[in-house]
């Protein structure tokens, strides 16, 4: 990794670099993040900052220990993207050690124990998230409602909570947090109500999906489309994920619309768009052949749905990603493109 290029052709190269790629990914996260902050308050920014600092620190410590040049690793942007994705998955109102632990785990264990950039089979951000969810389920499921529903914490109040765990005098954590829309739907459905009743009566829903969530998802969709246009990612994975998720939800909804929500609800809920465009497309851990990416994405969409609807977790994206990560080498091997001059037409 430290060696220089051998003096052999080609003697010219495109001005591409890993950091440029990562930088574009970071730009593309901006609209979704703004929507997130708008609806769910300042917590995201605080979490992002903590996660980012932790990730960069962890990255440089590891690079030092492995006796590798530190600066290129910090500037290649991959640790940054990991940290930001993780922060987006953590509830906005969270104690400081939550993003910190998750981020450190993602970089140290999920990334570097497996050999560092390019060698990690599992998406580091999702490993970090999964670890937090298993270790601290309560903190990880306490979402604050969008500001329409009374989340009025100021930046300083949020920071206070993050740092020392205190809330303004008249408020308690239980009072201001509530289950996320996906969780709400799941628990309410057990009470023998229908989807349409729940969407109309429960305040977290806008009638289409969760208040705020639909906008966050639409903004990530926007950023994702921009990534597509800038050719940072290809259409295969996101389209396949959304198609897989859409197909499953459409099927269930057509069979029993009382107990299953529409595809649109699922596309605009939870981490659907973030997952489809930003997490599933992580090049290191995703399939690399075009056909493989379609298989990978579609299976992931199906899994997201299954875990969401029948699983015990608030959303299915993280576990769907991790499960599919394991299948990548096999999928890639069996979906090699037809090589020029080898049969076909």
């Amino acid at each position, binding site marked *: 990794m*430290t060696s220089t290029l051998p003096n052999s*052709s080609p003697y010219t*190269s495109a001005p*591409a670099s890993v950091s440029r790629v990562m930088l574009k990914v970071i730009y593309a996260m901006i609209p979704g993040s703004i929507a997130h902050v708008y609806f769910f308050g300042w917590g995201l920014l605080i979490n992002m900052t903590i996660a980012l600092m932790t990730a960069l620190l962890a990255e440089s410590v590891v690079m030092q220990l492995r006796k590798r040049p530190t600066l*290129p690793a910090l500037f290649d942007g991959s640790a940054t993207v990991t940290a930001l994705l993780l922060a987006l998955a953590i509830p906005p109102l969270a104690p400081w050690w939550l993003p910190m632990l998750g981020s450190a785990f993602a970089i140290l264990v999920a990334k570097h124990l497996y050999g560092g*950039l390019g060698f990690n089979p599992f998406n580091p951000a999702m490993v970090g998230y999964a670890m937090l969810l298993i270790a601290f389920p309560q903190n990880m499921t306490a979402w604050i409602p969008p500001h329409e529903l009374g989340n009025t914490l100021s930046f300083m109040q949020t920071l206070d909570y993050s740092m020392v765990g205190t809330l303004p005098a008249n408020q308690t954590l239980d009072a201001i947090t509530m289950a996320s829309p996906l969780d709400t739907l799941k628990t309410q459905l057990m009470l023998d109500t229908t989807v349409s009743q729940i969407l109309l009566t429960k305040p977290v829903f806008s009638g289409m999906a969760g208040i705020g969530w639909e906008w966050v998802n639409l903004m990530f969709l926007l950023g994702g489309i921009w990534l597509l246009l800038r050719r940072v990612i290809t259409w295969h994975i996101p389209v396949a994920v959304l198609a897989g998720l859409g197909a499953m939800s459409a099927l269930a909804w057509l069979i029993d619309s009382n107990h299953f929500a529409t595809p649109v609800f699922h596309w605009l809920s939870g981490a659907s768009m973030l997952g489809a465009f930003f997490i599933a497309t992580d090049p290191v851990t995703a399939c690399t052949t075009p056909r493989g990416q379609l298989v990978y994405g579609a299976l992931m969409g199906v899994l997201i749905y299954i875990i969401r609807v029948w699983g015990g977790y608030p959303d299915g994206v993280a576990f769907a990603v991790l499960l599919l990560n394991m299948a990548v080498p096999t999928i890639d091997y069996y979906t090699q493109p037809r090589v020029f001059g080898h049969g076909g037409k």
Partner: protein
Amino acid sequence: MIHKLNRFHGGLHLPDHKAVSMQAQVTPQPLPKQLVIPLQQHIGAIDEPSVNPGERVLKGQLIARSDAHVSAPIHAPSSGTIVAIEARPVAHPSGMPAACIVIETDGKDEWTTLTPCADYTQLSPETLRQRVHEAGIVGLGGAGFPSFIKLTPGIGKVVETLILNGAECEPYITCDAMLMQARPDTVLQGAQIMLQAVQARHCLIGVEDNKPTAIAALQHALQALNDDRIRIVPIPTIYPTGGERQLIKVLTGKETPTHKLPIDVGVVCHNVATAAAVADAIIEGKPLISRYVTVTGAGIGQAHNLEVLIGTPMQTLLEECAARNVPDMQTIMGGPMMGFVVEDLQAPVIKTTNCLLHQTKPQSQAALPCIRCGECMRVCPAQLLPQQLYWHARAKDLDKTQDYKLFDCIECGCCAYVCPSHIPLVHYYRFAKTEIWAREREKLKSDHARERHEFHLQRLERKKQEDEERKRKKRELLQRAESPDDNKQDAIAAALERVKAKKAAQQVAPQNTENLTTAQQAKIDAIESRRKTLSNDSGQDEGQ
């Protein structure tokens, strides 16, 4: 009429840097004092000198040849005295010196007696091939494969299309463009002669559309010629559209199967410069002793094309073109995508030297790990998975690299060009290929039984082919009985051809690797010769 074009997968739009060397006309290079002529300028067997030191030679006189089938004779580029036959620095990826004939020129540039031919249409395909061979013509596009072999379709093979490759898709290089511009008639004559030699129905001349002047010149010349078998086809400028198999796909839609040759899909493909050399050889009787060379690059004051005698030291060309001589410059023979660095500029121009690219050494960037972004895969014209090839080549998992079809890699460099991690991918592929060849050789060496078996099979096959050939020849001779003047000549040519075929067969048989075609064998040889450098380099492998 618009010719329907096809696409190949991937490829790149590269900045072409061609305009700079296209401004000036082609200038003949002044006669150098000394000419250094390597005995191997082609793919195939090395030539034996047929002259001795002290001997005076005339321009165009044969000075080296080989009895091997895959070979091309060499001629004196100017008149003068042979002063030495010894190892000299040559342009080769290995950087090793090689045997050369050194001629001290006498300034008279005195030609030997040539045998021009006023009407080549009177000559049989065999005679044409024979003369192309005797003129020492090899593929001038860079590969250097003896051209007469590619003009020999072989028994039972019908050539539908002759393709002339005027794509010249590598950046910077303009010698073919210049040739098409300056001598379009010669190129077209070459096409006609080749059409006759391979008995093809028609000829497509593919030229990238970034050379409108060359296309116009050819079209103009074609109008005058009024030969409706020939078509000039502008093709989109996408690197590497000049790769033989890529060009065939673009022009005909046919995909040459990996283990087959273009002839198996009814196509024969030659470079435009080769066609011009064929025309000169047949019509004027001139052997191949000079060529157009582009001298260009950021380090060149006056980039342009020169007409250069084979054997001219590269250094003198650079001086001619006002090369800046500062440290950290390097000279590449060929283009930036597939060329190689010339270590010693005393090395001479050879038949395959199309371009000297003089520029600053690229800054060494540290390679990052592969992030599997797939960019390389999206540009690979062979539809490979370069990232997987790299992964396995790096791990020295040679079997896996073959699973991923390493040997379909044409080393075009597209993947390395786009890689955001700046991984020298092609370097890894070359290394893996040479490793595999080495391993294969070892295995076969110890596998005598199989060797003998294959030899036996080959012999049977050869005997069958020879019988058929003999029968065919007999039929042809009988048929031609009405045209008596050609008859004798043909009979002689046929006899020669038979002798050669036999020799060729003897050549091929002991090679015993697998059922290799000559082209494959040639490829192996080229790869093998790179081994030295590569195995040295590989010591500085990525330190992961």
